[in-house]
Structures are given as structure tokens and as C-alpha cells.
């Protein structure tokens, strides 16, 4: 059996072979392949991605870019809307907060839960004969309130508010369960002149106390700074409930 040369043998023989026509041809074609490959690889690396792309593909690329940018624009519009609505919310929240704070200030002064300071009057009622009772004091307090007194305190120990109660007691009056003795010092914050006017008219508070049968003495002093330090604990309403407004 004649020995068939293996592929490996043939390759080795060919490598050792001198130049032949066939080899030159093959060499030429391989050179072309090598050249073309290298050129293509470099062209590809140089990477204008889009040079040499087909028209159809370019159109598709363009379409998808347009769609993407449209989506992005929609997203931007949506986000801007969200931002402006959030900003509005914040503004109105701030306004509401500010309003609530102001209201709380006003109400806490009215309810007497915080100390207050401001211009007003100091009314001192001397009662040498013991004739001053709650009738006269109540009258005075009403006049002060009528004249716009915003905070009232008696004898530096009782803050007069909506729930304040008065009754006559031994040797003085009882206000909010507290026994007070004359002289009564009523401090009120408000417009000083108006407050004084409110007490001083014919048949008014001063008149009533200084005339018989009461026979007391009243002095009213307008001051720039009335300090009201007494506070009340806020009380929870047990029975009354606010009616929800529609």
C-alpha cells in the first residue's frame, strides 16, 4: 500500500518548495486579502459610525432620535408642571402657616395663655368704705372691653378672659376663685386715650364709684408700657364643639 502523504507533510513540503507559479498566485491573492482586511479594520476603527451606513438605516436612526427627543421633551414638560405645582403648594402652605400663626397669636392673647405687653392704662380703685363690689368692677371691665382693651389684668394676679367669673366676697371681690382685696389695680392694654375716655363720662365707671353711696376713689393713668404677666392655662372645651364650615 503506497503511503499517502498526510496534510501536514504536504504543508511542510510546500513551505520548503522553491517558487512556483501556483505559489505566486496564492501569494498575490493572500496579499489582497491581507490588505483588504487591514484597510477594512482601520476604516471601522476610525469610526465615523455613520459613514457608509445605508440610507434606510440612517432614516431609522433619525426617526428613533426624533422619537427619543420628543419623549424627553414631554418628560421635561411634565416635570416642569410638577415643579410649578409643588412651588404653588409650598407658597400656599407658607401663607396658610403664616395666617395660622397670626391667628394663634391673636387668640392666645385673647385667651390669656401668653404674657402681653403694650400701651394702655392703669386704673387704680381705692375703696375706703368697702362700697366697691362686682357691680361696679364688672361695669368697668365691660367699658374697657367696649373700648377695645385687648388684655386685662387685675391686681397683677388675675387675667381677665372670656371665662372669667366675678362674685362678692368678704372684704373684697372674688375673681376666678381668687380673693382680692382693695385697692384694685386694673391694667388694660389698648389705645390709652380711648380706654380712659371709656371710663370717664357722666354715669360711667369713675362717676359711679366716686359718687355716693359707693364713695371710692379712681385714678386712671395712661402708660406706654403695660406689662401683663399673668397667664391662664388653656381649657379644653368639654361640651362645645366647633361646627365644621362647609
Amino acid at each position, binding site marked *: 500500500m503506497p503511503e499517502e502523504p498526510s*496534510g501536514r507533510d504536504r504543508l511542510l513540503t510546500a513551505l520548503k518548495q522553491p517558487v512556483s507559479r501556483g505559489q505566486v*498566485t496564492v501569494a498575490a491573492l493572500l496579499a489582497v486579502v491581507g490588505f483588504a482586511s*487591514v484597510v477594512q479594520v482601520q476604516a471601522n476603527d476610525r469610526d465615523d459610525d455613520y459613514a457608509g451606513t445605508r440610507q434606510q438605516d440612517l432614516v431609522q436612526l433619525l426617526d428613533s432620535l426624533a422619537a427619543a427627543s420628543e419623549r424627553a421633551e414631554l418628560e421635561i414638560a411634565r416635570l416642569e408642571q410638577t415643579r410649578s405645582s409643588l412651588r404653588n403648594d409650598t407658597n400656599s402652605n407658607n401663607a396658610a402657616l403664616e395666617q395660622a400663626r397670626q391667628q394663634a397669636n391673636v387668640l392666645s392673647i385673647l385667651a390669656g395663655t401668653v404674657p402681653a405687653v403694650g400701651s394702655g392704662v392703669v386704673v387704680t380703685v381705692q375703696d375706703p368704705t368697702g362700697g366697691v363690689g362686682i357691680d361696679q368692677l364688672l361695669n368697668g371691665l365691660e367699658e374697657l372691653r367696649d373700648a377695645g382693651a385687648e388684655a386685662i389684668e387685675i391686681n397683677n394676679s388675675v387675667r381677665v378672659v372670656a371665662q372669667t367669673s366675678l362674685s362678692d366676697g368678704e372684704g373684697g371681690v372674688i375673681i376666678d376663685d381668687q380673693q382680692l382685696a382693695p385697692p384694685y389695680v386694673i391694667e388694660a392694654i389698648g389705645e390709652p386715650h380711648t380706654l380712659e375716655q371709656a371710663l370717664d363720662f357722666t354715669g360711667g365707671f369713675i362717676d359711679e364709684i366716686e359718687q355716693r353711696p359707693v364713695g371710692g376713689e379712681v385714678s386712671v393713668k395712661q402708660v406706654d408700657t403695660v406689662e401683663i404677666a399673668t397667664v391662664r392655662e388653656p381649657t379644653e372645651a368639654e361640651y362645645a364643639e366647633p361646627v365644621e364650615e362647609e
Partner: protein
Amino acid sequence: MIAGLGLLVGIFLGLLLQPDVPLWLEPYLPIAVVAALDAVFGALRAFLDGIFDDRVFVVSFLSNVLIAALIVYLGDKLGVGGQLSTGVVVVLGIRIFANVAAIRRHLLHA
């Protein structure tokens, strides 16, 4: 020996000259290169099988390249250039793998 040298010379020339690919050739060059590679591997296999003929090699090489380019050109005209190029590359890739497998069996006996 000369064949191997030819390949090296080609690569060297490509690196040295760095020519720009003309625009009209751009879509066809990659396919042509793959087709040429297919022809080269086919030739190597034929050589190892002992049935190599340089005339056959030249003809198969040129026809491979031309037909590949033609198919892509036709595809472009029909509006399916991209898909057709992919198809050609797949087919040639399969052939190259088959040829390389045969070559491997010859050289490594495995």
C-alpha cells in the same frame, strides 16, 4: 512560503498606506473580505486534502468576492441590504467554521 509572505506583505502595505475606503466600496468591502477569507480557508483545506489547484483557487476566490458583493448590491437595491449582508455573513461564517474544522483535523489529527 511565498504564500505566507504574500499575506504579510498585504497586511504591511495596508498598515503602511492606510488608504481611505472609497465611499461606493464601503458597504461591500467587509462582505468581500469575509468571502475572501472563506475562499482562503477552502483553499487551505483543499491543499491539505491534496486536491488543491491554483486555477480553481483563483476562480473561487474571485467568484466568492464578486457574488458576495453582488448579493449585497442587489439587497441594497431591493431595500433589504442590511438583512441580506447579515445572511451572507452567517452563511460564510458557517462555511469558514466547517473548513477550519477540516483543517484542524488534518494538522492536529483531532
